[in-house]
């Protein structure tokens, strides 16, 4: 076991296999934004607080700023670019548009992915479930009412879909 100055890693990002050689100090956030050019993932606090950098790692919401890319080796990553299919918005994205779930949009990729993680886990969340789960991501614009309405609408849209 020798220490490495660069790491060859392989992960699946939005369904596509990606192989990269990175310095081990590269965060998953940097890999996604700079190496893969997926700039929908945002950065703000770099400390796990705000949630702008939220991605799904094997389906679970995580802060990509607080994780080395090497730690995600072998995992499946979903970023906001991975939700729309065949040019059609994901129902969660549509719900955020229909229910004024964003203003400036900076928190929105994280909010949408957090919603996806919530609804995958709890398809019919109560208002309290939603507040508790979504409360971890910060929005400076909306006052959250539009976001809560969007999540509720998305839950409804997804449950009537299947």
């Amino acid at each position, binding site marked *: *076991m*020798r*220490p*490495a*100055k660069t*790491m060859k890693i392989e992960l699946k990002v939005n369904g596509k296999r990606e192989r990269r050689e990175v*310095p*081990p*100090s590269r*965060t998953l956030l940097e890999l996604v934004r700079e190496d893969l050019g997926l700039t929908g993932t945002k950065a703000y606090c*770099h*400390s*796990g*607080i705000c*949630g702008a950098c*939220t991605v799904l*790692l094997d389906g*679970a*919401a*995580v*802060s990509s*700023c*607080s*994780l*080395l890319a*090497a*730690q995600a080796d072998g995992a499946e990553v979903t970023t906001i670019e991975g939700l729309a299919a065949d040019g059609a918005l994901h129902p969660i994205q549509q719900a955020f548009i229909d229910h004024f779930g964003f203003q400036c949009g900076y928190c929105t990729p994280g909010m949408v992915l*957090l919603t996806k*993680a919530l609804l995958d886990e709890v398809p019919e969340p109560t208002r309290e479930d939603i507040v508790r*789960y979504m*409360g*971890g*991501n*910060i929005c400076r614009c909306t006052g959250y009412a539009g976001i809560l309405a969007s999540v509720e609408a998305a839950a409804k849209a997804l449950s009537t879909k299947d």
Partner: protein
Amino acid sequence: MRPFEYVRPTTVGEATDFLREHGDDALVVAGGTAAVVMMTLGVLRPDYVVDVGFIPELGPELDGSRSGGAGLRLGALTTVRSIERDPAIAGAYGLLADAASQVANVRVRNRATVGGSVCYGEPQTDLPPALIAMGASATIAASTGVRTVPLAGFFEGPYETVLQAGELLTEITVPLPEPGTFGCHAKFTVGSPENKPVANASVLVRTDEAGRCVEARIVMGAVGPVPVVAEAAAALLAGEVPDAKLIAEVAARAADATDPQDDLRGPVWYKRRIAAVLVERALSCALRKAGNGTR
């Protein structure tokens, strides 16, 4: 982030062998929620990062029997989120699940590990008071052997623990509580939930059929350099059927045992007041559960 060299051991032996050589210049990274951020901020500047996240031995189910008769064995990599959600933990070990559910936000809980929560040694952390109240121990491996340390003696000061360079925490064990034991965790945070709490409190009680307290443990976090165990306060409950007056007395006595500091989360007198309120809440909650017989 300052460049470093990276190693990814796949056994505890590989990790401790590397740490024996390079322990002073190496940083162990588990979930990374604290370690990666500290490197990004430049607070930690290791030459080597030892990523222990790929060591199966440290995984959540060390021997496939989480909640056997002897108690609960949590591999160091068990996430805070799985402690929150595991049905086997929610039962007899409900206090742990309650504390885990109150950590930060779901993104942090998905990554943060029980090993990291303990080894970080941050006084504001939620799991240590709960683990100490439940009588948990840490198993620590080095290239020279393995030792076991009760968690009550694990913390030495803010960000200081008994862990030496070269050592790796491999497992947390929690003895199975006696039947009739119930616990609750309470915390108070100013601002959003991921801010560090002003104080937190874990309370565990066991009552007999008549509702008399047979055993009680009270441990508070964020109100001292290490978790504060309030033994004298807990002793007031012995043999009693606690009423509101006694609960308030116990809470006040527990707050006397704290040793908080003035900081941006409040002055000393305020933190003491909050600690008393939290002990009162957690104790009332635990007694309510004991009364209902629901964990």
